Each structure stands twice: as C-alpha cells, then as structure tokens.
C-alpha cells in the first residue's frame, strides 16, 4: 500500500486492503483482484504519487467534470456541497477519474465499509466503477461477514440509486433550502441551551456506533435535560430482561458455533436473522465440515418454520406456549439429571440427554421473540452446561439504548400526550409506521410543536412530521459501526451523494455544537482513541474496513441460581396465537422500496411482492381456508384482514405474520403491498399475540409465488444420505453416441453442497446484482416470468405436519451435451472452448425452443423490454461488464463469464495459468456457508475437482446424460436414523 503522507482527499478513497495471505481467509485473495493489481503495478504507484503531490481542495474541483459525472451518475440534482456545513463531499466522484490515487479508468475500485442491520455492523466491500457503486461483497476481514453477505447487504446498492429517495428538506409540505435547515438547527440549539434541553426529545434508531455514542454524550454535556429515546421494532427487550434476571446486568452474547456439538434453538432464526447470522451460518457450515469431530446435532423448537429449523436435524414445531414448556422441561431434566440417553424419548428428553452429553460443547439459543423466561433458560442452560467460554461468550451491551425500546417509546408517547415535548428530533427510523398499534404515533406527532424527521425517504413519519430532512444513504456517508461481537468497522462513502443530504451524526453534531462534517466527526472519535498513531491506524482501518483488535472482550458473568417462576396457566379457551417476525425480504419495512428484495422469493414460501399469514395446513383446513383466502384476525378490538398461506411445517394453532408490508408511503415500488402486521402488534405483546380469533371472509387474494409444487414426486432430485452412507449411484460416465469434445485447458464447473445450503437467498440477489437481472414486477411474476438466473428450489419430504425441508440452488447446468443448443436454429447458444454454455444475445431471435429443451428450466426469456419498464432498476446500478438484455432474447446463468475473462486476462498478463479460486462467481462469493464452489474441473488440485470426487457427488437428472458441469453433493441427514428410532417425535407438533 502507498504509505506516504496523504492529504485528506485520498483518505476518502481508500481501496480495500488485500488480507495478508494465510490470514483467516487466505483463500479469499481473489476478492479484489483489481486493487491487488493496482497495488502491484509500479506505474500505478507513480500515478498515485503524482496525484498525491496535488492537494485537492474545494477550490480545485473541476466543475465540468463534476457536472458531467453527476448528471451521468443520476439526474437528481443536488450538486452542491454537504448539508450542514459548507465543505464539499469528501467523496471519490469529485476526484475521479483524475484525482483518485488508485483509479485506472475501467478498473473498478473496492471500498471497505460497514452496513447497519439491527443497529449492528456488517463489513462489506463496495465495488465501484468510475465512482458508481454497482456491487457489494462481503469483507473477509470483518467478523460478521468473513467475505459473505446476506441478501439485504447485496441490495443496498439498489436502494442507493432509488429515485424515490427524499431529495429536498420539507417543512409543512413545502420545500425548504438547506440554509433553512441549518438555521433550524442553530435555532434549536440556542433555544434549548437556556434550559439545558428540557422539552427537547431525540428519538434514535439503536445503532452501535462509537461516534454516535460520543456525540450523544457530548450533547448530553451541554443539554443535560434532553430526553433520549431509542426505538427499533425488532429490538430484543425480552432478552435484556432475561439477562437482567439471570446475571443481574444487561449483556450481549456471542456464539461460537465451531465449538458446539449440540445446538438447541428455541425460536428465532440463528442462520436467517438477528445479529451475526451470516457468521453463525458460516461457523455452522465450518463445523459440519470439520473432519475431526462427528456431525453436530441441531435441534430446533419453533413455531414459525425458519432456515435454522429447515436445517435442523430434529425439529419440533409447536405453538409459543409449548416452546416455553419444552424449554422448562429441558431445564428441569438437566437440573434433576433425569436424562435417559436411550429408549423412546420425549423431544425435551432427547434434547436434554444430548445437551448433557455435550456439556461445554453444547449451545442453547433463544430467539428474540421468545418470552424472557425462555431466553433466561437459555442463559442458564449455557452456563450450567459450562458452555460459557467455549460455545458462548458474554460481552458488554453494544448499543447504549437504556432499558428497553418499547419502554423508551412508551415514555416518549406519554410525554407527547401530556404536551411536555416542545421539540422532537427523529433521527432515522419510521415510528409512525413501526410503532405498536396501541401507540398512535402519527396522531401524537400532531401535538408536538416542532417535529423533525431525518430519513432517506419521506416516509409515513416524514409526511407527518413538521420538518423532513433527507438523510444520506449508508454508501454515501461516514461513520463507524460495531459488529455483533463488538468489532468496529469504519464506514466511508463509496460515492458522492446522489442527493444533498445529511446524517444523524451530523445533525447531532449540529445540536452539540461540533460543527464539522461526518468525516471530521469519525476522525474526531478515533483521533481521541488513538491519538499518537492515529494517521497510520486510520488509513489501515479504512483499508481493512475493521479496526484491528476492537472485538469486545468477554466479561465474566456469575449466574445466581435462577429458577423460572412457575408457568402461568394456559388460557381456558384455546384460541389462535399470532407470532410476529421480521420479513425475509423487507425486514422491518425499511427495504420495502427495493425491487430486488420485493421480487426475491421468500426462502420457505417462495412468495414475492407481499406477505401472508402463515398457518399450518391442518389449522388452515380447520378454518376451511386455503392459501390465498383472506381471513379476519381480531384481538381485543383491533382487527386485520390478511390472506392466509398454508405452510407445511408451521406449528398448529398459531399464525405467523411478517412485519414490513402494508407501507403507505414507501415509494413507487413498496407502497400498498401486502398487509401491515404492526396494526395488531401491541407494546405489551410485541412478539406473541394470544387469544386471536380468525374469521374467514370468503374473499380471495391471489398470492404470487414462484414455486407451486413442493413435493419431489419420488424423483431423485435432492439426494439425501445418512452420515457415512454410501450413495446410491456414483456418477460414472454413461455411454454416449456423441464424440467427446476435449477441453484440455480450463474446464469450468460448479459443485453445490446441498448439505451446506441453508436457502438464505443471498446468492440469488448477488447474481441479480452482478448480472443486471431485471426486475419484472408482480404481474409478470404471477404469469411465471421472473428472470432470476439462479433460483433456489424448495422441496418437502414427509407429511405436511412437520416435513423435512430441502433447498436446492439451481443455476444453469452448463451441460456438455447441452440439449438447448442443438435446437437453436441460428447458433445463438453454443459451447465455448472452456465448456461454457454461452448465450449470444445479439444472435438470438427468440424462438424460445431452447427453453423447451432445457430439462432444468433455467433459461429466462425477455417477454418485454424489462430494463425499461416499470420496476426496472436505474441504469446506474447496472454492472458495466454485463450486457443489459433487450426484448425478445433468451438469457441465463453465464457462470459470471465476465469474471472468468477478467481472471484470464490477469493470468495472461502474468503469463501463468488461472489459479484455483481466482474466479469466484457472484453466487459463490456471497454464500455464507461456501456451499457453492466454482473452478476448473480439470485441475486435480481444485476444490471443485475434489468435490466431484466426493462420494456424495451426483448430477441432477444424470440419467438424461446431459453431462452437466454444475453438480451437487448430497445432503447428509442424521435425522434419518433418529426418526427411525423415536419416530413419534414428528407427530408431537
């Protein structure tokens, strides 16, 4: 890396640093080939130094370049400098292509930064082409990512360019200038300096950010009377109560699944949602592949089918109350030592005996929606089994958000109601939409004399508040975020802001009186922390995306001999129970206007463009409801109409509603889709709502799904083997009438380990982002025209009560004897010299016969000009290395041929063969569990070659002898013998 003193401008565009080989993810060095070359080649360095010699300052900005780039970037206006202070954005676009030290035109730059979810950071690398971020990858140096991402992180780049983002400050429905905003902040500061801030309320979205914490403390010094509120609809208040009860103090917990032999989850979704789920998924996969220890046992006791439950070796699906009783039984079994390791067992007994056997290598996890007692039991079990220190460690709470968000919001509501709130700053979040139903936040806002909302969208809250101020997108702003384990990741802008906007930190600073921009604020925080060696550590941290050694240390906890209070009796009349959950596509509603996520088939239902009330088939049948029938859900006075989805594996007598839909002011994409489950959520029962009556309305609402049939019909599609079982048939080459074409160079192939795939969907979005896969909209998906190049098929085995759930990612198989090619009359799809099945878009006339002849049905046709229709992604987000397809041509997975050729070019320049792992497909790179592996099957040393040697290896529909290059590894299920033994378990549901 270039190491001499650099003016601030260069600091803004620190390319991500290549991890030192042999590092935690030594095999990941291919992630940023571009930067590697940049750093490698000397003339680049000279170029950089030449640039360094020219200090960039606001005066020296080439205005014309700026204008050109901005208009080319996105015609959204907002050309001038930062909102709160006059300084220009410290963003790369100003300095590119001329002033960037690392920039070679056409070669993308990687920026290490952090994205927030649940108030915690996930380290990512942003790939930026000429100042346009187009793709997000995981940051291998970041503990929450390890090089992988979730679907949300992948899709942030689309939100960045969202044309619906709020563009100008609004006050009372009229546009205001940024001068007005600055004046407003100054006035507020003056007004409240007098009384120390009494009457000033500030509502924040919880966010583990050292800089924000510093600013809050700073503001607290000059405004001791300010009341701070924190609210997030998904906060883990109950968990806080639990740790309070067990350890007498709030703590956060970090799991280490690589250490666990027996994992028990009560609700939640360890792999699909919550803090560090990407890392936990990766660790679990690593643990499964660990050769030195037997396969771990994963038990899931849950109401809503989750990714964790789908992967679990043994799963019990029961209504929330019974989840609690199972937890209590397990605890009592463990405490009384009444475990019988063999013979017919209740599920609780099976868990207890397994946990007891595992001891310190056991891990018990409770979801955030579980009552405090269950989460407390999890704590107790972990500590009494001795898992603390091995599989789980406790750390100081990461975000200072006082005692419980719901309490915090209730306090605010109470203050607003009583008129004590003179001014309310809402810095992020959307309380008017997310607040519990018993708090009419929008109405209360009306009573506040001065309310200011800061957000990237003028959403439900922004419309209600007196003032609305546009906020910067994460990819445009400075900041720092703590990951689930406390590790700090710096956030730097990867582009010049699309619109003139500001950040919560800058507003807080404005209040606190520290008048500098986001860059200065973050530097301020860390200059104080590092003082002496600030410069070096700052640059390194920017390059790494993480602050070295900032992980939170484990804190000692001593659990008083806590015992659960006796369970209160079940309600006399058994009614339905509603469980609320974040939505796998739009989370708490913040992603509602993101077309990629709206069109992303939810892992288990494969539903798109909306949500549904999930019920067990038996329960739905009891009410005479079929999928798509609208039912009326009523709970003391409040009622909500929602379409029902009969979901196999769901617990009986319970309903799951995912939050985040039914937005009214989300934008052109997200408004008025699905139903708003917040309307039933109360501050007393935020997660589990009991005594709900269900009344069929007789109306129907055709829900949109991409998979209608979920049985395998006894076909050998997803192959499942018991541990150590020899596979049915080894894929020995079948005889063929056709000559063998010799691929003596690279022969690209992909191997997907179905034992590792969790169905988390991040590969699907990664593929969409990398390959400019269009968004087609709900009507088109309903007609069966979704365009995803990579789909994840979901199959069930066993009855609908509590089936096994299998996921199977399906990209193009790149068959060597491709059936699609021979039927094309115009040679529009042919084989490459490296065995790729290639689509020649410009030659395709659109007979569609290739799709007819594809047994895997992975080809997608452009029925309309999708890249120009409604819902189409903005042009700026398109990957310049991939053609945007037009109307009337067929398309499909290319194995990310653009990445292959990039690697080939690099290898040629260095006059060497392409190394294994040098080519990563987008799906492979995003996959947390490394289920997808790509490489040269001719190279005996390649991972893909080794996987093809694995006894579990098989070709999908191999009997057709299409000789696919994409092959699968059978899923290992140690549930098979278990079911054979105590088969009664499955009926417990």
């Amino acid at each position, binding site marked *: 890396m270039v190491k001499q003193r650099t003016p601030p401008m260069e600091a803004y565009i620190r390319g991500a640093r290549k991890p030192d080989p042999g590092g935690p993810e030594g095999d990941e060095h291919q992630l940023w080939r571009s930067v590697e070359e940049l750093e490698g080649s000397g003339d680049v360095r000279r170029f950089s130094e030449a640039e360094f010699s020219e200090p960039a300052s606001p005066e020296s900005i080439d205005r014309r370049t700026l204008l050109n780039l901005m208009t080319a970037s996105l015609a959204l206006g907002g050309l001038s400098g930062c909102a709160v202070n006059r300084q220009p954005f410290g963003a790369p676009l100003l300095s590119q292509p001329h002033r960037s030290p690392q920039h070679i035109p056409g070669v993308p730059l990687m920026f290490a930064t952090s994205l927030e979810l649940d108030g915690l950071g996930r380290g990512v690398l942003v790939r930026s082409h000429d100042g346009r971020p187009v793709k997000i990858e995981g940051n291998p140096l970041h503990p929450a990512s390890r090089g992988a991402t979730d679907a949300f992180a992948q899709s942030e780049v689309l939100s960045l360019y969202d044309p619906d983002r709020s563009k100008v400050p609004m006050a009372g429905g009229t546009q205001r200038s940024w001068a007005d905003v600055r004046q407003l902040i100054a006035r507020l500061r003056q007004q409240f300096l007098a009384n120390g801030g009494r009457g000033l309320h500030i509502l924040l979205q919880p966010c583990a950010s050292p800089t924000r914490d510093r600013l809050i403390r700073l503001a607290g010094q000059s405004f001791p009377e300010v009341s701070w509120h924190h609210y997030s609809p998904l906060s883990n208040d109950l968990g806080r109560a639990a740790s309070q009860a067990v350890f007498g103090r709030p703590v956060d917990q970090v799991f280490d699944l690589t250490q666990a032999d027996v994992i028990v989850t009560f609700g939640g979704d360890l792999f699909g949602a919550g803090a560090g789920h990407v890392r936990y998924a990766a660790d679990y996969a690593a643990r499964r592949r660990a050769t030195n220890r037997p396969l771990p046992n994963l038990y899931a006791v849950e109401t809503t089918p989750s990714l964790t439950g789908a992967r679990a070796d043994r799963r019990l699906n029961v209504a929330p109350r019974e989840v609690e009783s199972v937890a209590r039984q397990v605890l009592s079994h463990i405490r009384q030592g009444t475990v019988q390791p063999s013979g017919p067992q209740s599920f609780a007994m099976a868990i207890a005996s397994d946990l007891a056997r595992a001891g310190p290598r056991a891990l018990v996890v409770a979801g955030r929606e579980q009552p405090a007692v269950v989460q407390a039991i999890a704590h107790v079990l972990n500590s009494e089994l001795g898992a603390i220190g091995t599989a789980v460690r406790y750390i100081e709470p990461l975000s200072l958000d006082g005692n419980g968000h719901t309490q915090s919001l209730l306090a605010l509501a109470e203050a607003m109601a009583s008129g004590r709130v003179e001014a309310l700053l809402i810095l992020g979040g959307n309380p008017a939409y997310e607040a519990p139903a018993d708090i009419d936040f929008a109405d209360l806002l009306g009573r506040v004399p001065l309310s200011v909302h800061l957000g990237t969208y003028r959403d439900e809250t922004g419309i209600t508040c007196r003032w609305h101020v546009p906020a910067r997108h994460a990819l445009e702003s400075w900041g720092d975020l703590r990951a689930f384990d406390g590790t700090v990741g710096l956030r730097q802008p990867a582009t010049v802001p699309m619109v003139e906007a500001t950040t919560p930190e800058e507003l807080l600073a404005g209040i606190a009186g520290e008048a500098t921009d986001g860059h200065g604020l973050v530097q301020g925080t860390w200059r104080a922390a590092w003082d002496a060696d600030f410069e070096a550590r700052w640059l390194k941290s920017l390059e790494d995306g993480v602050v070295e050694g900032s992980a939170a240390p484990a804190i000692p906890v001593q659990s008083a001999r806590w015992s659960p209070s006796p369970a209160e009796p079940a309600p006399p009349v058994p009614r339905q129970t509603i469980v609320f959950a974040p939505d796998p596509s739009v989370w708490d509603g913040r992603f509602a206007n993101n077309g990629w996520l709206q069109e992303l088939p939810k892992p288990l239902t494969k539903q798109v463009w909306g949500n549904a009330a999930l019920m067990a088939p038996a329960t739905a049948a009891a009410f005479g409801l079929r999928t798509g029938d609208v039912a009326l859900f009523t709970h003391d006075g409040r009622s909500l109409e929602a379409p029902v989805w009969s979901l196999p594996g769901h617990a009986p007598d319970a309903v799951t509603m995912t939050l985040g839909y039914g937005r009214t002011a989300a934008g052109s994409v997200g408004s008025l889709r699905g139903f708003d489950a917040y309307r039933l959520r109360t501050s007393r029962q935020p997660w589990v709502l009991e005594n709900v009556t269900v009344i069929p309305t007789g109306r129907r609402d055709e829900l949109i799904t991409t998979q209608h049939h979920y049985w395998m019909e006894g076909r050998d599609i997803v192959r499942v083997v018991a541990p150590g079982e020899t596979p049915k048939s080894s894929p020995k080459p079948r005889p063929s009438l*056709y*000559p*063998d*074409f010799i691929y003596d160079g690279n022969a690209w192939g992909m191997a997907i380990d179905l034992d590792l795939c969790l169905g988390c969907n991040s590969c699907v979005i990664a593929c969409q982002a990398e390959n400019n896969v269009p968004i087609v909209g709900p009507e088109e998906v309903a007609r069966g025209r979704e365009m995803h190049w990579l789909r994840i098929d979901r199959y069930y085995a066993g009855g609908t009560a509590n089936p096994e759930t299998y996921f199977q990612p399906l990209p193009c198989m790149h*068959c*060597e*004897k*491709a*059936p*699609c*090619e*021979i039927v*094309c009359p115009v*040679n529009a799809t*042919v*084989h*490459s*010299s490296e065995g790729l099945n290639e689509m020649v878009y410009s030659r395709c006339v659109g007979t569609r016969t290739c799709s007819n002849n594809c047994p895997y049905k992975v080809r997608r046709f452009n029925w309309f000009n999708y890249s120009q229709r409604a819902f189409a992604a903005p042009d700026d987000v398109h990957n310049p290395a991939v053609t945007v397809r037009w109307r009337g041509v067929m398309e499909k997975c290319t194995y990310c041929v653009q990445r292959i050729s990039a690697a080939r070019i690099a290898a040629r320049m260095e006059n060497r063969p392409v190394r294994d792992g040098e080519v990563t497909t987008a799906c492979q790179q995003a996959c947390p569990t490394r289920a997808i592996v790509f490489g040269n099957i001719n190279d005996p040393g390649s991972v893909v070659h080794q996987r093809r040697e694995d006894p579990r290896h098989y070709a999908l529909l191999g009997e057709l002898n299409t*000789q696919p290059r994409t092959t699968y590894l059978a899923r290992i299920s140690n549930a098979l013998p278990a079911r054979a033994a105590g088969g009664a378990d499955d009926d417990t549901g």
Partner: protein
Amino acid sequence: MSRADYGVMGEFATADQLAEATRAARNAGYRRLDAFAPFPLRRVSHVLGCRTEIVPVIAATAAVVGGGLTYLAEYWMNAIDYPLNVGGRPLNSWPAFIPATISVSALWLAAAAFLTMLFQCRLPRLNHPVFAVPGFERASEDRFFLCVLADDPAYEARDITALMKRHGAVAITRMELGG
C-alpha cells in the same frame, strides 16, 4: 403486298374428325403439323410425333443435384466454414442434415418439371398467329383444330384445304405471320 404465309388451319367439330384429318395429313406427307384440342388426345399427339420422356429425366436429375447441393451446403456451413461445438454433437451430424435435404430436392424436382414444360411449350408467349384464326377461342372449350405450317416442304395450300374439307372441316383459314 400480302404478308408472309404462316399456314392453313382447319376447324373440326369432333375429336374423331381431327384424328382422321391428322392421320390423313401425315400420310399425305406433311411433317410440320400442329393440332389443338380442349383436352389431351394421346393418339393424335402420337401421330404428330410428340415425345415428352425428357421431362422426368430432367426432373429426376434436378432432384438429385438439388438434394446433393443442399447437403453439401449444410456440411460446409456447419462443419467447414464455421465449425461450432453445438451441444457436443458431431460437426457433421448427417442424420440431422437429411430432412432439409429431402425438402429441397423435392422443391428442385417440382420446379424442374414446371420449367421444362414451359420451355418445351415455348411458353409464355402471349401473341401467336393461331389466335388470329376466327373461332379459335373454342379450341379451349369444345372445338378441334388442325394446322399445317407454311414452312412444310410439301406445303401446298390448296391441297391441304381440300384434304381438310374431305375430312369434314367446319371452317378453314389461312394464317399469316403477324396477322
């Protein structure tokens, strides 16, 4: 100045009369004869010495040539000029090249037959002296005509007229070139 003589045309009411007249004319030594009828009359045209065996020969040859060319073209395009690995199939996938070959050879067969007919009949020719003969339009309907051309070595208009009268010609006309 009378225009150049083309021949003598006799009109008959029935096919039998035409047949008689034709045979008589042949016996009288006339060689440049032509007969017209609303439908084919094998025996008369046999007397006239009309031979058509050449047509099927030409058509068959055309079929073979057309088919051969088609196959060679397919082979050259897909295996020689621009060879591509299409679904791992052999470059010269001869079974797949057959259907188009058959279709096109049938096309050549039909086209050759049609064109040969036109050539042999010297068609299209919209203008012809016979059309000048009064009542000749009934040749396409219900009348039969015999014509002795003037370039016949034994041509003698008067004898011919007499011969035709003898065999019951309804009307006899002398045709002139460009008439």
